């Protein structure tokens, strides 16, 4: 397996956690490469290790064994905080928006960390509009928005970071089918813009998406479907 520029490579990734008296191997020697401009879907049952895998990929958790590289650089050497700030953003199932802020303000937080120059407000509106949030909605508290709208805001915030990797953990888990389709469409557009988009889901709709490269996670092992 050869590292390419702007390619995210997972090598021999193994992860365990202690469950009381015994150790549980959550990930078993995972090897996978994610290339820019593509949408990846990782499907599997609950507890199969999907969330653990993307936590390690997005530097939200510490790698125990194996390595994750981006552009040939070990992300541990880049540093977890720096990697999160400059390389990867995560969309969570629960949206994880700051509730006392408006949609626009949430996006501006993402812009702050990206080192965006110029008017954050206008850029936030642009990003929100790009995911289907109007200006009126953008100025509303996120609590007042629907689940689908909140997820769009979360995606816009990820985009604000202008990072090359977008990781989504069950982004449509709380959404109805119609909204799910629209969200997937957004991810497809993001991938088309040249970013690596990794979507963890148990949704067959995502898995059956023609453009997505689908991996199946089972009992800590990853295989191409």
């Amino acid at each position, binding site marked *: 397996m050869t590292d390419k520029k702007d390619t995210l490579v997972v090598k021999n990734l193994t992860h365990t956690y202690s469950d009381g008296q015994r150790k549980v191997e959550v990930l078993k020697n995972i090897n996978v490469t994610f290339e820019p401009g593509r949408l990846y879907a990782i499907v599997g049952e609950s507890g199969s290790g999907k*969330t653990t895998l993307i*936590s390690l990929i*997005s530097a*939200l*958790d510490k790698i125990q064994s194996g390595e994750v590289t981006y552009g040939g650089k070990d992300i541990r050497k880049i540093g977890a*905080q*720096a*990697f*999160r*700030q*400059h390389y990867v*953003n*995560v969309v*969570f199932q*629960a949206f*994880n*928006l*700051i509730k006392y802020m408006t949609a626009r303000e949430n996006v501006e*937080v*993402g812009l702050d*960390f990206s080192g965006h120059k110029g008017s954050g407000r206008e850029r936030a509106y642009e990003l929100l509009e790009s995911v289907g949030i109007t200006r009126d909605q953008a100025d509303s508290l996120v609590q007042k928005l629907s689940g689908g709208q909140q997820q769009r805001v979360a995606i816009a*915030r990820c985009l604000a*970071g202008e990072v090359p990797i977008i990781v989504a953990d069950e982004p449509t888990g709380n959404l109805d089918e119609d909204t799910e389709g629209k969200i997937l469409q957004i991810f497809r557009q993001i991938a088309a813009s040249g970013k690596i988009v990794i979507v963890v889901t148990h949704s067959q709709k995502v898995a059956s998406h023609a453009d997505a490269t689908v991996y199946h996670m089972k009992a800590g092992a990853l295989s191409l479907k």
Partner: protein
Amino acid sequence: MQPDTDALRAAAEKARDSSDSDSAAQITQPTISEPLAKGIADSQYIKDYTYSVVTSANADGYKVVETAQNEREMQFQSAFDNAKNQANDQVEQFNQRRTEFNREQENNSQSQGSGQNQRQGGSSRGGSGDTRSAPQFNFNFDFNFSDPTLSRGDTAIQGVNSFAFVSDVENGSMKIVEGQAFDESTKDGVVISQKLADANSLKVGSEIKFKTTADTAKELTFKVVGIYSTSTEDFNYNTVYTNIDSAKSFMTDDQLKDLSVQDVRYYLTSAENKDAFLKETAAKYPEIKTDNLKLDIDDSSYQTMVGPIEHVGSFASTVFWIVVAATVAIITLIVVINVKDRRYEMGVLLSLGAKRGNIIGQVFVELIVVGTIGFLLSLGTSHLIAQKMGDSLLKQQVASSQQATSDTTQQRGINARPGGFSRMTTRQSSAKQIDTIDVSAGVHEYAMLFGIGYLILIVAMILPSINVLRYQPKTILAGKE
């Protein structure tokens, strides 16, 4: 500075206990020389000083006031003179009876042993000679009960470098009622009692003449610059106050040569310097100890004045530290709760790439902003609260202090009765307690307030910061934190 009564008492006891009369120590009242008094005053710890010289003069063209003191002294003198005359009479009677007894004895021995006398031949002359030379008892003792300052003149002259330093003026029992006081620069000016002035129709500006008590008396003319009144009972109203130089003009060269000063008092630059002053003086003037003198620190006035303030200060200091500790605890608790409530937000920020230091900084900046608003609001309210609290606390302290003083005074009244030496060492403090407090704060105080406030906020941030450092975005966002 005054005689060291303890040292004198010890010396007296040593002399009394000495079995060898030749080696018995002679105890004399120590005196304070003017150069010593002035030398001590050169200390860096001395702000001001005073001493007095006491002499006397005779009235020249005015009549002295008959005072209760004069009357009492005369009564004592009269009683003593009577006792002395009676004793002399008794001694004279005793001597007469002894002479008669000796004579009778001689006559009896002559009549009973004339033969024997003849045998002895001429020895009767010798017997007669023994009778003539029988010891006669004499009583020749005199004593003057009057005030030493009046031992020679009828007017007491007290020289002091400033009238304000006269003990009675300091304790408030004496005050100028007309004219003005004198100081070192006043030339030939005296302050006389109102009674003396009234008795002689003297006014401020009048001339008053004295005759010195020297064998060759000289006339001295002074100008009355002030008239005083006193509330002291049995006061000698013939006491005239003037400055040191003027008082010295009443003295002879011999008196000036052996001049001793009295009522030597030094005023320290700060009560805190008392130990340093005593140490420095003891090292520089060892004769103070060897001459049985003693420097007593009398900070009773200071303590009386500032006692309640110091108690309030001490209480305020205690309250301050309690408030600081409580504030740190409360703010720490508030910030910990705040950080815990916002841990989800912090998890989000961490997932977006925020540095933990930035998150701690954000919380701290928020705290500083809120704190600064609070401090600014306190600028107006703290003054009012502090003034009210200060007044209330001081009122309590003054009341408490006055009660304690009253109890002590009653106790002292009982203890002082038999004391002879206590009169030399006890000074009644006339200082008024500070019973009002003016709370004011300047730039320095407010800078301190802000500084301490910010310090409290920094300390209060320690525990919440540790919590933030422990946060893992994954566990927060997974809801496991």
